[in-house]
Structures are given as C-alpha cells and as structure tokens.
C-alpha cells in the first residue's frame, strides 16, 4: 500500500525538500510581504496592468469600521483579510435581501454580523501569526458557466505553479460542500490535474484520495476544457516579471464577464497538486533547471516555450 521511496519512484516532492531547496532558496525573504499581503499584491498587480478583481475599498483600522456603511450600496461583494492564509476569513456575499445580505451558503447576515466579521479580521483572527490585519472589499467573481456542473457554490480557481518564471504544473480547484465554497484542498476542496498543453482537466483528488467524480454533484471532473487557457498561461508568465519569486503558486479565477483574473499569489504552494496531476514535481523541476542559469531574464514568450518543451520532455 505504502511506497517507501516515492521520491525516487514517482519524483515526489516532499515538504522538507520544497522548503529546503525551493522556497527557501528561490524565494528571497524580502519579497514575501508582497505576496503575503493580498492588498499589496492587488495594488502591484493593478499598477502593472495585470487583471485582478476590482478593489472597492479597504478597512485598515477599527475606527474605519464606520466606512462599512458604504456596503449598503453594494449588492454583492467579497470581504477578505489582507494576510489570511488558506482561504480563511473570506466572506462572500451574493445578494441583498432587505437590510441583510445573503451568504454564498444561503445564510442571511445583518450589518452587525458583517461588522463583527471585519473587526475579527482587523484583530488578526485569520492572519498568519495572529498579527493585526486589514480587511478589504472587492468585486465578487462569478464563476464561468463551464464550471457549473463541477463546482459547489464557490468559485473554482486555477493554480499555476511557476518555477523560475516557467509554468511548471497546474491544477483546477473545485469547491465542495465540505470546503464551504472555498477552493482550498486542506478544507476539503477537490483538486484536478490539468494537461497544460491543452488546458483540459484530468482526474481529481479529494483529501488525498484519487477520485473521478465531484463528491457533491457526481459529475465527471475529467475532460473539462478551461476557457482562456493560453491567456492564463501568458498572464502567469508575465506576473513573474513583477513578483520575482522563483517558486510560486498563482491562483486564477475565470469571471463570467471579465475573464481570467489573478486572485492571489502563494509563496508556499501546497504539494497536493502532485496527487491531482498524478505526477511528481521533481522531474519537471529538474528539466527546467537543465536549461541552465538566466532563465529568469528571458522574455515571457521564451519562457512559455521552455514550459512547452518541458511538457514534451516529461511526456516523452
């Protein structure tokens, strides 16, 4: 049942190796705040003409809570903590019913409830290490119709792992009932491997078990063609020119109206993507490294070519 040397056999990248060889060495410490603080990420993305959900306003201090009354003009929006990790503390409001707002799950929240949530965010409840945090309110992304059969309530997102500016491996993350609409694998979302050449989904993984059907909708999850696939990869490669982190996960969502948007960046992307793709990361990492130094400096088109070449090598 258990293989004792999965690294050699499948090229499996373990937590220790990811930390020791890739994130620790390729990601300079001083660049982490750009990624860990979603507000900063968003500002940087906007400044570089990279697509992301529009920021309405942010709440930085407790006394600014009174600005929350602005939301009464909003019908649907998302409240996020700037430094929340793993999708924690994100409140998605999909509709306004009288004086209350409807959550993605259907529950109604009053102004008071929302203010309480924001003050919890400011107190650092959801932030890494419990530090004081900021909250921001942004455009609610509406999921592309193609994902309707395989997404439960939330918005599926596409994670692209970039190594030295080259797209390395991708996965589509589908929210489930268990994950409460969030697209985080730790919380019970489904991860689906992607054929990066075509942008077509392969099989999935749910809680470290391989699956073929979505656990809630029972629809097959393989064979979905991701819209705007070329566009997504191009944006990912261009994003590297802004955030010079060598080993990074970029999360995209596909909005019905606006198309692909960068939701957030993650400097410590998870390892379950390997299960979703049924493939270890190590061979791909080694192929990218075999292109020698200076890959980071190449123009984005060149790096996309390297990615394609790498995929052909892995397959062949």
């Amino acid at each position, binding site marked *: *049942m258990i*293989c004792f040397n999965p690294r050699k056999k499948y090229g499996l990248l373990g*937590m*220790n190796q990811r930390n*020791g060889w890739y994130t620790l060495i390729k990601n300079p410490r001083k660049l982490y705040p750009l990624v860990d603080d979603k507000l900063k990420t968003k500002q940087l993305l906007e400044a570089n003409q990279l697509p992301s959900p529009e920021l309405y306003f942010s709440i930085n201090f407790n006394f600014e809570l009174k600005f929350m009354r602005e939301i009464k003009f909003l019908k649907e929006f998302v409240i996020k903590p700037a430094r929340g990790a793993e999708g924690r503390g994100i409140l998605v409001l999909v509709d306004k019913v009288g004086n209350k707002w409807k959550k993605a799950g259907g529950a109604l929240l009053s102004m008071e409830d929302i203010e309480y949530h924001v003050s919890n965010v400011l107190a650092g409840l959801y932030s890494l290490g419990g530090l004081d945090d900021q909250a921001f309110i942004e455009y609610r992304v509406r999921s592309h119709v193609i994902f309707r059969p395989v997404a439960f309530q939330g918005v599926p997102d596409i994670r692209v792992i970039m190594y030295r500016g080259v797209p390395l491996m991708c996965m589509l993350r589908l929210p489930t009932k268990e994950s409460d609409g969030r697209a985080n694998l730790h919380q019970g979302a489904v991860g689906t491997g992607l054929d990066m050449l075509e942008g077509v989904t392969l099989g999935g993984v749910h809680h470290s078990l391989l699956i073929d059907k979505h656990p809630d909708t029972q629809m097959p999850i393989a064979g979905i063609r991701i819209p705007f696939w070329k566009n997504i990869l191009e944006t990912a490669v261009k994003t590297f020119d802004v955030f010079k982190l060598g080993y990074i996960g970029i999360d995209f969502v596909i909005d019905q109206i606006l198309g692909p948007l960068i939701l957030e960046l993650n400097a410590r992307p998870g390892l379950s993507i390997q299960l979703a793709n*049924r493939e270890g990361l190590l061979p791909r990492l080694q192929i990218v490294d075999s292109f020698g130094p200076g890959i980071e400096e190449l123009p984005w088109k060149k790096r996309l070519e390297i990615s394609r070449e790498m995929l052909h090598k892995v397959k062949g």
Partner: protein
Amino acid sequence: MNRKVYLFALLLTLIAAASISAKVFYGGHAVSQEYSRHLWRINITMRIKGKGSRAKVRLTLPKNTERQTIYNEHFENDEMVFYVRERPDTNRIGFWRSELLESSKTLQYTFSAQLKSLVYDLPQNLELVADPFKTFPVDFHRWLEPSEFIQSKDRSIKRHFKKVIGRERKTAVVIRKIFDFVRGEVHYKTERRSKDAKETLKKLVANCGGQARLFCALSRAAGIPSRLAGGIILTAGVKNITHVWVENYVGGRWIPFDVVNNHYALIPNHYLELYRGDYYLFKYVGLSKFEYFFLIDVENMPPVDNRWSLYALPIHFQAFAKVLLLIPVGAFVVAFFRSVVGVPTYGTFGPILLALAFQEISIGVGFFFLSAVVFTGWTLRKILDHLKILVIPRLAIILTMVVISVLVMMVVGSYFGQKNILYISLFPMIIITWTIERFSVTQIEDGTPVAFQTSLGTMAVAAAAYYVMRIHAVRIYLFAFPEILLMIMAVLLILGRYTGIRIFELWRFREFNRLKGKTSL
C-alpha cells in the same frame, strides 16, 4: 549549500569531541586509576505522614572523606521547606520541615558515591597513654568520656576491661584483644533497638549497634579516643537496614573496626558512611507515620573534579542547570518528529514545555489535566461563539474559565480527600493552560478536527520528549559533558538540510501507488 552545512556540522562535532576528550584526559574528568574504586547510586526515600501539626524530619547526609566522594546529589522535597546544615567537624544534616503537615509526603535524596576500600597499619610500638585527657586536645574529650549508651566508666565494663586486657600497654594488642573479646563473646542477633554497652555485656547478644557500643566503651576505658560510625552496606537492591561500626583514633588517624563483619583496621569499598558518633540516621517530630528505604544501584559516571564544569555549581543551581540542559534535548526530539516523521504540533517550544511539566507531575496526571483543559476550552468556545465577542477578550475568557475549572477540581479533590491534586505546582499548570490558547487559535484558523489532531500530535511528541528526557544516561552525560549540545546542534544542522519525504507524507501520497499500473500517468 549542503557542503557548507555539513562542514559546519563537522566542525561543531569536532569541537565538542575535542572538548570532551580534553576533559576526559586532562580536565579532572579522568577515571581514577584506583583499583578498589566503586561507584554507587543511592536513593533514600522517606514516606511520611503528618499529624496535623508542625513536622520536622532530619537526615544525616554523607560527607566527602578520604575514602568516599559524594556527587550528583539531588533532593526531592515534595514542597516541604528544605535546608542543609553544614558545619565543620559535625555531621552534615538535611532538614525538611513544614509548619502544618497533615497529608503524606515522599521525600527523596539521591546521590552518587565513589567509595574506596582502605586497609590501615596499626602502629605496633605505640603504647596506651597514661592520662588521655591531657594528651589529646579538647576536641577529642567527647570521644573519651562515657556517654548515654557507651558507659565506659561503668563498673561492669571496667571489670571486664581488666579481665580482657590485663597489664597489656601496647595499643595495637589492646585493640586486638578488645576486638577478639567482643567478637568471641557477643553473639549477633538482629534487634528492633540496639542495646547500650552495659546491656550488651550483660546479655552477650546484640546487633551491630550493641556490639559497636561495647567495643567503643572498652576502647574508651583503655583511653583510646573512639567513636561510632554509621552508614549502609551497599548491595544493589532495596533495603532499609543501616550498619554501625567503630573508629578508634590511633597514631594520629581514625581507624575503622567492624566487629560484626570481622573487618579489623580495614574498611571495604561497599561501606558508605553517613554519620559519625552515636547518632540516629533519621530523627523526626510531628509525624504519625515514617517509613524509609534505600534503593541502591550501580553508578556508571565517576565524580568530576573540575572547577570549570557544571559540577562546581552549588547543588540547587545544578538542578536548574539540569532542567536547562533538557530543553535542547526536547527541541531535538520535536525537530525530529516534525521534519522527519511529520507530526503536527503546537510550535516547537510547546511540546518541550509540556514534557518538562510532565517531569514535575507524572505523565498520567499531565495527560488527564491536558485533556480536561482542552475539553473545557472546546465546550466553552462553542458557547461563546453565539455571543459574538472579539477574539482576544474571548481567549481571555476561555483562559479564565480554565483556571476556574482547575480551581474547582482542586477544591472538589480536597473535599473528597484527594489532596495529592493540590500539590501540582504552578509551572506545569501554567503550561497546560497555555495549550488552550494554542488550541483555540488553531480551532479558529484550521477547524476543530485539525485542532484535535494537533493536540494529539503535541501530546504524543511531548510524551516522546518526556521519555527521552527521563533516560538516566541522557541526564548524566549531558551534565558531565554539556559539549554534547554542540553535537545536538550539528545533528540539527543536518536535519535542517534533510529534504527527504516525511513519514506522514508516505501516507498522504499513498494513492500514487494505485496509479502504478495505469498508463494515464
């Protein structure tokens, strides 16, 4: 990158090894070449129960002499007031006291002893002195005068003395005659209470105390300064019998004689001397019960005579240093479990602190309290969730409630006579309540199942650290050679570049194996 790390680790190991070998070969850590050297580890345990009044226990503690070295002393005082009275020329005495003692207590004194056997030559030409009180200095008069149980001026003693010694004046011969007389005439029999010298002479049946007193009385009658010495005959195992022998001052030194075991002017290497003079090993007031036993085992570390080592610290600081030394050991265990096995824990320091807390209260009690605290915190959080309170005040409330429930447990325990619940000291309590904060934060951040998993992981790692810390050899060698910490650092450096798969990851990625046969990969 890795080569630098390995080099640095190697360097640390070499420094540690050099320092240890320097200590072993030149630094007083040397194992002495004495042939008849013996190392023992002795534990004296006293179980006492108070009468509800003031209680006091005294125990004479062994001293360093030319033939015995006492080291690695450790006291467990069970929260009684403890102090050691040390004055030159008297016994070293440890006192335990409590102003109001009602419950049972266990006092422990553990130490190591290096003992030598010694054989003395009695000067053959020395004669008895005519007027001992003038010849010997004032300090020696107490060893010449009769005392309560050593009635050297008693008529029957004097009569027997004349009969045994006659006109002999040579000290060596006189002592031999007294020795043979006591050995030949008095039969050995174990008794509840030792007889005094007179009684022994009348009944001619006595235990070691009676025989020693008679020998001592006859020696004093002859004008030889003589005193009792008491201690334990060491044999591995549990015992509660003490032994008494005599020391006579001949030719400028105290020479031991043990009539019962026929040791004439020699002392074997398993005799541990605890006191001198006609004393009791234990004395106590205000107790309704007093039990004691000796637990004797073999020691494998020789004493260290190095001013620049931890042994030079005063004894209670040594205990503190020992605890400090355990922290890196615990950290090593935690690092191993986290990065090689992959067990989730509350930080790195959490399991270490818990393991240290378990050292003070037993691991069973620790687990009970920890589970109780986590459970209280969990239920409370469920209730508080409805009230919509800010995070930090909410945590403070949970902490307060945990403290209240611990206090309630203590009061209830005390009401039902379970007083041992009261003896949990502050430090373990604080650490255990601290886990509730980590529990709540994890619960908020990652959900309840993860919080329970992490709690379990923390407990398991803490238990592992606890058992590693309890290994006797670990404590002893770390204390003798703190350089081992450098070696631990070297191993941690290598662990810091360990990039292998964690054991828990084998389980997480187990599904990879199902794909082995498939071609879609």
